[in-house]
């Protein structure tokens, strides 16, 4: 019985990072029927998957392999009707960057993670903008993207706090 519970616990631990990212992708697509200034809510939601991806790569790299970065990006491309491979490539770049900063993150504070997320958010958005513009043969207006980037960076602490609480309850450590 205890072995069975242990297996369940291990499965839960292994799947939580990926499940939370997939949950955020589906949440981003929810038809909210909101209008006016509330449209910014959608912009904030669209940054949630990347926030979760960054959080888990830094905090639970053994439970979030590079393959998942590709799959989450691919899933977003498919569901958002974007050019296939665009977000997958951008997320792989973010994955490389964050894992390459492993020693930097060692014993660093949340402010450093926030700063790294800001760099990743700008980089991922820039890659997506460049690929989408090249595909459409037209330079896409950067203003909505800049607003999305700013909102994403602003709301990162909220999502990171929620994920941190989740991590503590499941993995039992900070």
């Amino acid at each position: 019985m205890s072995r069975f519970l242990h297996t369940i616990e291990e499965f839960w631990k292994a799947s939580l990072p990926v499940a939370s990212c997939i949950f955020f992708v589906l949440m981003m697509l929810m038809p909210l029927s909101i209008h006016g200034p509330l449209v910014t809510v959608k912009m904030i939601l669209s940054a949630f998957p990347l926030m979760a991806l960054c959080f888990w790569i830094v905090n639970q790299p053994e439970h979030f392999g590079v393959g998942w970065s590709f799959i989450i990006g691919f899933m977003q491309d498919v569901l958002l009707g974007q050019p296939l491979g665009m977000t997958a490539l951008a997320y792989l770049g973010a994955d490389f960057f964050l894992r390459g900063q492993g020693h930097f993150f060692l014993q660093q504070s949340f402010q450093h993670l926030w700063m790294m997320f800001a760099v990743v958010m700008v980089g991922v958005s820039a890659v997506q903008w460049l690929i989408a513009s090249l595909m459409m043969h037209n330079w896409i207006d950067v203003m909505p993207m800049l607003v999305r980037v700013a909102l994403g960076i602003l709301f990162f602490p909220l999502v990171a706090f929620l994920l941190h609480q989740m991590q503590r309850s499941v993995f039992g450590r900070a």
Partner: protein
Amino acid sequence: MSRIRHNGMPSSIAGQYGPALILVGLAVFLIVLNLFFPSLVSRIRITFTDLLAPFMHAAAKPSEALQGVSSAWESVASVREENKRLQQQIDELHEWRDLAQQQASENRSLKGLMKYKDDSVMSFLTARVIAEVGGNFNNSVIVTAGSRDGVVKDMIAMGEEGVVGRVIEAGEWSSRVLLFNDLNFRLPVMLEGTQLRAILTGEGSGSPLLLYLPTEVEIKPGTRVVTSGHGGLFPAHLPVGTVQGRKGQDVVLAPYAKLDRLQMVRLVQYNLAGGAQNPLNQELKQAAPDVTAPPAKVP
């Protein structure tokens, strides 16, 4: 918040970067595939969307419930004003009905005199919106109707008030509708009463534009814009919006449809019975042989 731990990556270079480089190669390959085989990419995309449609449907449930509560609250709060407005609307609609009946009768008699034969067949299919995509680079929705329901690429999608977009991908269980505010959206339209033709195009976050209208002609704000039916792909006279004003050489459109309140869409099945050469006709015949059958199906 937390202290950040060391990421436990394998130490050898090949072990560290090998699988990641393969994935990068795969991502680049997919991007190239978009350029040279768009129809294959579209097929891959809609197949995966079909697979994920049940999850999206489940994820949309809480928001549907929330919308129900919100609209119920709104209607309770404004019941008196709403009642007055509806009474006024009923009076106006009675006048319109009388006028429509009069014109229909006149139309019938004129067609009889001219021996006019109407070849077009149009019916509707209603589908629920399960996912809303409002990203930086595209604006589309995913609906719960696919090829098994008779949906084919290029069908026009209508909201309650007017045209909202066009089907760009039709899977077996679900379809993607490109909304009129998307940068890639194009629709032939005409200005009612003037016979001026234009192309409606999306502007992302801004209002849609009407392209290729002559600059020397004065276009009055408030002029009704409808589909032109040019080329036989789409039915004519579907309501799109009204002219808002000029923006340089282009004309800005005020659309009838409210994209932020889209819960259901009607997909227009259109067929020109006489036009066998029309590729849409052939597709329609294969996918939905009986397009004249009563529709109104909500999958």
